């Protein structure tokens, strides 16, 4: 291999600033998309288990439609497919206000919402049916039973798979570079453009993703321990 490494490209010139900017964009994009995904996921995950068919069908339609089409396609859909449907003035306004960022946010949020819904559904279905029956017997409506009993318990059960899904969301945010969002992966390529040192730039990007994900996973492991329901989850070791 006749490649000469030059790691100093990562901290000389503008590289540091670009990486930081990219990191911030990635975090901002992922955080907003995560909120959307969580909201959609909890709603439709719960809807998939309610004893009323039209609601279940609606949620199933959403989940199957959005999780079975590749994320890349959704990026293009929200960026190229949706604007032509909007009135001219709104479209122009959007194009002047980082349309690509919002398109990426929706693409990520809606796609991962569908996947999150399945995680929530599995959590809800792991709760014994009697919990629901007991809540209804106490005089709660179905909505109240879900809001006060079922969903809170399910959320405490699904921390590990939800963490997994959240990390996927964070890493998938890199697909946004295909519609010109200047996130972290984009910025590592930018460094490559300026310095022609691709391996160094990619290594920096990889390490940042790794640190981010390991960090989040560690925090979530704490959360999991803190919120585990005694007696419901058998803990190993």
């Amino acid at each position, binding site marked *: *291999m006749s*490649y*000469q*490494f030059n790691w100093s490209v990562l901290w000389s010139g503008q590289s540091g600033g670009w990486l930081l900017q990219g990191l911030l964009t990635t975090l901002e994009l992922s955080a907003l998309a995560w909120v959307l995904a969580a909201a959609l996921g909890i709603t439709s995950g719960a809807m998939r288990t309610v004893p009323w068919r039209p609601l279940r069908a609606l949620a199933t339609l959403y989940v199957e439609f959005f999780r079975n089409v590749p994320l890349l396609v959704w990026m293009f859909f929200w960026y190229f497919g949706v604007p032509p449907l909007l009135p001219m003035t709104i479209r122009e306004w959007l194009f002047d206000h980082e349309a690509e960022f919002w398109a990426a946010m929706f693409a990520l949020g809606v796609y991962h919402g569908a996947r999150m819904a399945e995680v929530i559904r599995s959590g809800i279905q792991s709760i014994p049916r009697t919990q629901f029956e007991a809540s209804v017997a106490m005089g709660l409506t179905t909505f109240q039973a879900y809001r006060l009993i079922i969903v809170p318990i399910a959320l405490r059960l699904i921390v590990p798979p939800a963490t997994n899904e959240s990390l996927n969301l964070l890493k998938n945010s890199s697909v946004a570079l295909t519609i010109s969002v200047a996130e972290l992966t984009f910025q590592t390529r930018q460094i490559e*453009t300026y310095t*022609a040192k*691709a391996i160094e730039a990619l290594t920096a990007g990889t390490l940042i993703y790794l640190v981010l994900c390991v960090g989040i996973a560690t925090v979530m492991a704490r959360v999991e321990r803190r919120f585990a329901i005694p007696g419901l989850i058998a803990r190993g070791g």
Partner: protein
Amino acid sequence: MKRLFALVLTLALGLATSTPARAEGTLDKINQSGVLVIGTRTASPPFAFVNKNNEWVGFSIDLVEQGVLPSLSRKLGKPIKLEKKESTPPTRIPLLTSNAVDLIAGTMTDTRTRRDSVDFSITFFVTGAQFLVKRSSPIKGIESIAGKRVAAQQGSTNAKIIRERVPTAKLQEFPDQPAAFQALTQGQVDAYTNDGIQLYGLKAKAPKPDDWKVVGDFFSYEPYGMAMRKNDSDFRAAVNNGLMELIESGKYLELYDKWFGPKSETPYPLTPENKRFLIMQVVPK
């Protein structure tokens, strides 16, 4: 934990500092495999693109097939086959350094920064950056893009120049030409900048070429070269000889006429200066 850390550190250091017994030169590699592997573009007409008949063709590919390959065959004394792989601006240098391809023959501008990482052949085409805009657009060149949304290709030299010269322009960088052109068509961006010749290629391939115009003086100098791994002068000499013979024999002009002549899809006359520049790169036998 300590042991794990030590292991990771050793691996990382090993990766960073080792220079494995310098693999044999590219010529030996080609001699053994009988194949020259090039990295090229799939959507950069007329240099390298997939045409209507689903064939991977273009000016750069022709230069390799009719200039570089014969030169290599002569040098090695046996027929050499060509294998094409897709390369994009962000991937082409890693593809080279990892030995996945031996030569980048597409639309790569020779720059001094890039020469830190790869070596270049002689220049085989000269162009400069311009803008592609809708016919009715008020944009006339780099002087009128302040505050406008401008698309560029990720990893290109044009984006770099716009960022430095017109920081107020809203630059949006797309990984490939089709996405950037789509954004221009729909109005997400007001202009798309790339090397002038590529914009003419794009315009010619557009569903309605007359809806578009290429505007502005060249705001950059883009000499295209073929890139290869550093410090491999035997291989570089073979590639350069192939290109020089093409220019010397006039075959280069035939190919130029095929792809850029008045009857081609992207007419782009060879200026007298550029022609002279090409000829003067040919050193005596």
